[in-house]
Structure formats: structure tokens, C-alpha cells
């Protein structure tokens, strides 16, 4: 059963303020989690195109370590 926006608003407005607050927080949380999942999915699609998606964790870790040292060397050049 689907509700119209107005019907939904009526139902929400009938809730206690604390329930309304909890509901708003939960909606924000779901939006955040879905946004993060979409972000992650797009990132993985790019890695697939670049044929990097199947890299093993050790390989990824080694690349990250290399990048870490390069960035720090550049950022803290004396």
C-alpha cells in the first residue's frame, strides 16, 4: 500500500515529537547509507573498467603504502 505525500505527512505529524525526531534521524541515516552504497558502487565500476577490481588486498595495501610515502615526501619537503 502506498501513501501520498500528504497522507504520509499527516501520519508523521500525528506522532509524538520524540518519535518524529527518531523518524527524521532514521531517514537521514538511510539516505546516508544509500548514498555511500551508490558511491561505492560507482567507484567499483570505475575500478572494473580500469581492470583493478580484482586486485588482492596485499597489492592494494602496497600501492597505498607507496602513495603514502610519496605524498608525505612532497608535503613535508624541507
Amino acid at each position: 500500500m502506498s501513501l501520498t505525500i500528504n497522507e504520509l505527512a499527516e501520519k508523521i505529524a500525528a506522532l509524538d515529537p520524540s518519535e518524529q525526531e527518531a523518524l527524521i534521524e532514521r531517514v537521514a541515516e538511510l539516505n546516508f547509507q544509500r548514498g555511500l552504497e551508490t558511491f561505492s558502487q560507482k567507484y567499483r565500476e570505475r575500478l572494473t573498467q580500469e581492470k583493478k577490481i580484482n586486485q588482492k588486498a596485499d597489492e592494494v595495501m602496497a600501492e597505498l603504502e607507496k602513495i603514502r610515502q610519496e605524498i608525505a615526501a612532497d608535503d613535508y619537503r624541507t
Partner: protein
Amino acid sequence: MTTGHNWVVLDTNVWIFGFRNQPEHPACSQVLRRLNRLYVKVPRQVLLELRANLSEKEMSELFRLLGHYPDRIDIRWDKAEMELVRKYQKLGCKLGDAVIAAHVEEMNVRILISENRDFLEEIKGLPFRVLNAEDLLRELESIK
């Protein structure tokens, strides 16, 4: 000490393994899904490393997402104090690792989450704990 109201720093590997859904590190994705329940500081070195791994568009999208929780996710572009960086170098850290340790100490963060088992392992007397993502989830479960 629990992670409840303590700020944590997530090492770059936690972010990247989480985004990748890296099968060897499933806890990283779970940690990212719970970001809105943590207090996370993101220091400059991690930001620069994320920027090196993400496209400009991806980076903007990530900032937009993290911006949902400005009270819980603190993005810090300031450089670590050179004196602290040198301190960790003298203790045996490579420059990049010294920068991360310096950031964590400087921000008074008590917990660094990293999937690198050896990270800072040999450094004695660290002013913060190094946990992996699975440890963090366990601690979060214990304080439910």
C-alpha cells in the same frame, strides 16, 4: 576504553577497502556503513591519499556525503606539526607513517583504525591505540 564517544581516525586503507568491498577485509565496509554513529576525524594525510585514489568527481561526492554529519565527521586540512613528525621518525617510522601518527596525537585522538597489521607495531608508548576494523565493530557491539 570504548569507542562510544571517542573520536577515531580511519586509516586510508579502511576507507579504500570499504569502498572496494574488499573481500579479505569485510569489516571495512561495515565500519563505513556505521560512519554516522562514529566520531571520525579525517586528517590531511588521509585526505591527500584519498584524493590520489579517487577522481575529482568522486572526491566531491565523498565530501558531500561526509557533510551530512558535520558534528561527527571532522575534516582537517591542516598539516601535522613538524616537531611531532620528527618525533615519530626518530622512533623508527617512515615519513608517511610518522605523519599519520603525528596527526592522531596532535588531534588528541585515542584510537587509530588500520588494516595494516604491522602499522606502528614496534613503536612503544604510543598515546593512542591501533585497532583494526573488526576490533572496532566488536567494541561498538559491546557498548550497544
